[in-house]
């Protein structure tokens, strides 16, 4: 073997980290939304809308940051629909999220038609970190990503700290665990939930944009290809903790890479394409067992609309 184990791990990470980055953004956002008590199954729709709008704006303006910003706004806007339906109108969260995904897939298909096959001049470029990027081997393999990868990594401790160590985080968690008690303490339950869901949508939008302005970089109809659903599963795998979201996202990024690496061995690409989805089922199964054993689980008020009259 010409490649030693150390080099192999680095190579795997180099490929897995960018592949897992859209999942990381999506999962971090969904963790916050679900912590507030709102399940949003619309991640796939918000991601694909982020991908198409991010690409469209980056392509038109020539500025990739306008694209990413637009993707965040579009994701947030879609999430706002879900928030209004679930928080204000108190409709079924599963169905509303599903509707959002359908809507996103439909609109993105129509919006993106003119961008199919278009090159992107303003793609996100790898950044050079003085010192680190110049390290031999490691520098080349691990410190030549684009900025969204690093922001994603930095968001993990930041969002973890916010969630567990600040008043804001306690408020968010209490709204998801016991909204009546939070309400009694003067917390505006609806507002907190709106904010968390919209934040989740913005993150999903950025995750989608990462696909179209950096990872691909191109617009392909349906390019999220189920990533949004894997995000929902990763949120459960992460037991609603940003730190485990990082682990899960890169793990699934690694699976994506494995798919391509195994193909030359003569295994049918169709069978390999099943891998992430089968693994998702397995991970959900394991997570639910772990949750039962350790008596941890979803936020208690997840999927339960709150109203003062009916508490």
């Amino acid at each position, binding site marked *: 073997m010409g490649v030693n184990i150390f080099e192999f791990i680095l190579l795997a990470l180099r490929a897995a980290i960018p592949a897992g980055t859209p999942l990381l953004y999506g999962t971090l956002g969904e963790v916050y939304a679900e912590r507030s008590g709102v399940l949003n199954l619309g991640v796939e729709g918000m991601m694909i809308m982020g991908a198409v709008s991010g690409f469209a704006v980056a392509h038109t303006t020539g500025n990739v940051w306008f694209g990413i910003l637009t993707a965040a706004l579009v994701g947030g806007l879609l999430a706002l629909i879900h928030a209004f339906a679930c928080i204000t109108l108190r409709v079924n969260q599963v169905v509303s999220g599903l509707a959002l995904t359908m809507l996103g897939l439909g609109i993105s298909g129509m919006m993106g038609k003119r961008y199919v096959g278009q090159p992107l001049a303003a793609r996100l470029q790898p950044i050079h970190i003085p010192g680190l990027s110049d390290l031999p081997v490691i520098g080349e393999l691990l410190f030549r990503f684009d900025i969204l990868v690093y922001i994603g990594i930095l968001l993990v401790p930041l969002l973890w700290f916010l969630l567990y160590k600040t008043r804001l985080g306690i408020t968010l968690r209490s709204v998801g665990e016991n909204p009546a008690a939070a309400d009694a303490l003067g917390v505006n339950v609806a507002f907190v939930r709106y904010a968390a869901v919209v934040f989740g949508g913005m993150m999903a939008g950025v995750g989608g944009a990462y696909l179209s302005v950096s990872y691909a970089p191109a617009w392909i109809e349906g390019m999220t290809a189920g990533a949004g659903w894997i995000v929902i599963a990763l949120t459960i795998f992460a037991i609603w903790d940003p730190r485990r979201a990082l682990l899960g996202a890169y793990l699934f990024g690694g699976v994506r890479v494995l798919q391509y690496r195994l193909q030359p061995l003569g295994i049918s690409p169709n069978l390999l394409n*099943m891998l992430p989805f089968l693994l998702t089922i397995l991970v959900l199964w394991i997570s639910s067992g772990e949750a*039962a054993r350790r008596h941890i689980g979803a936020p208690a008020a997840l999927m339960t609309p709150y109203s003062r009259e009916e508490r």
Partner: protein
Amino acid sequence: MKAPHIRFERRLSSPPGLQVVALIVALLLAMITVGIIFYFLGVNPFVAFQRIFRGGFGSLFGLQETVTKSIPLMLAGVGLTLAFRGRMYNIGAEGQLLMGAVFATGVIRIVPDWPSYLLIPAMFLSGFLGGMVWAFFPAILKARFRVDEVLTSLMLVYVAGELVRFLVYGPWRGTDTRGFPITDEFPLASHIPTLAGTRIHYPTWLLAVLLAVMIYVLLTRTKIGYEIRVTGENPEAARYAGMNYQRVALLVMLISGGLAGLAGTGEVAGIHFRLRPPEAISPGYGFTAIIVAWLARLNPLAAILTSFLLGGLLVGGDAIQIALNLPAATVQIFNGVILLFVIAADLFAQYKIRLEV
């Protein structure tokens, strides 16, 4: 000081007339919303709607195609009314449909020489089994291990799609297909009869209507149907009443999966006479069936009607795709918007809503 807020008062009873009015208003509002979205995407909504209506309902040919497409929607949709009533969110009907198609095709590969009266029922049975198998995994994971069935059933849609692709690109690819990823054409004896000059494979339609009635009777007139409804409306109460959650969960999932499998069988044995790549077999019937079920307010009999409506929308959607050069995903806009307005309509039928300032 009190902030303005919306108050909900549950109605003591929800009059059926109000429910129908709420649904019609919801559909109208959904159409207006889709029109606005179309406008912003650069498509003239009036032209689009005219084409959709003319395509789906405005001609004899259009109506025939609408009925043809309503068949898989009805089968899968009726199954979903049962699953959703039992609060099992089977989102994977699309995958179960594809597995029905695979299992039906399997029969052809094993006993291609059987006569029609054996072959067609065998295909339907096998297709039902295929759908059931695919629904079994999410069902047992939910019933035994509390694994969320939304995600598992949906993941299996992707897996089923890849399996179909694997089969038609690989071991099952036909010999007379000039390189296309399809199986050989099924023997004539396996072709489900159609109404002369149309693609309406009427035995499947009759089967779908029969099953809609049967599921309705099951839900409203039997003990297990009562258990399903109680479990769906209030799982806690069902448990206290000694009802077997696992049994209900498995039953509704397996039946709904089986019905989706029948839909897949009808497509390969009544329309295509081959197994093809997944997107050729189904333009998302399994997902549109969710709207069929919800629009029917989870009433299996009403699903007969709503499947016709959404069948027409699919046909109309095809028409505007061709006429206005739109992508296949366009229909999903309708799906999403209609679904949103329909669940909102449920709410208006069940609650009095006032804005208090």
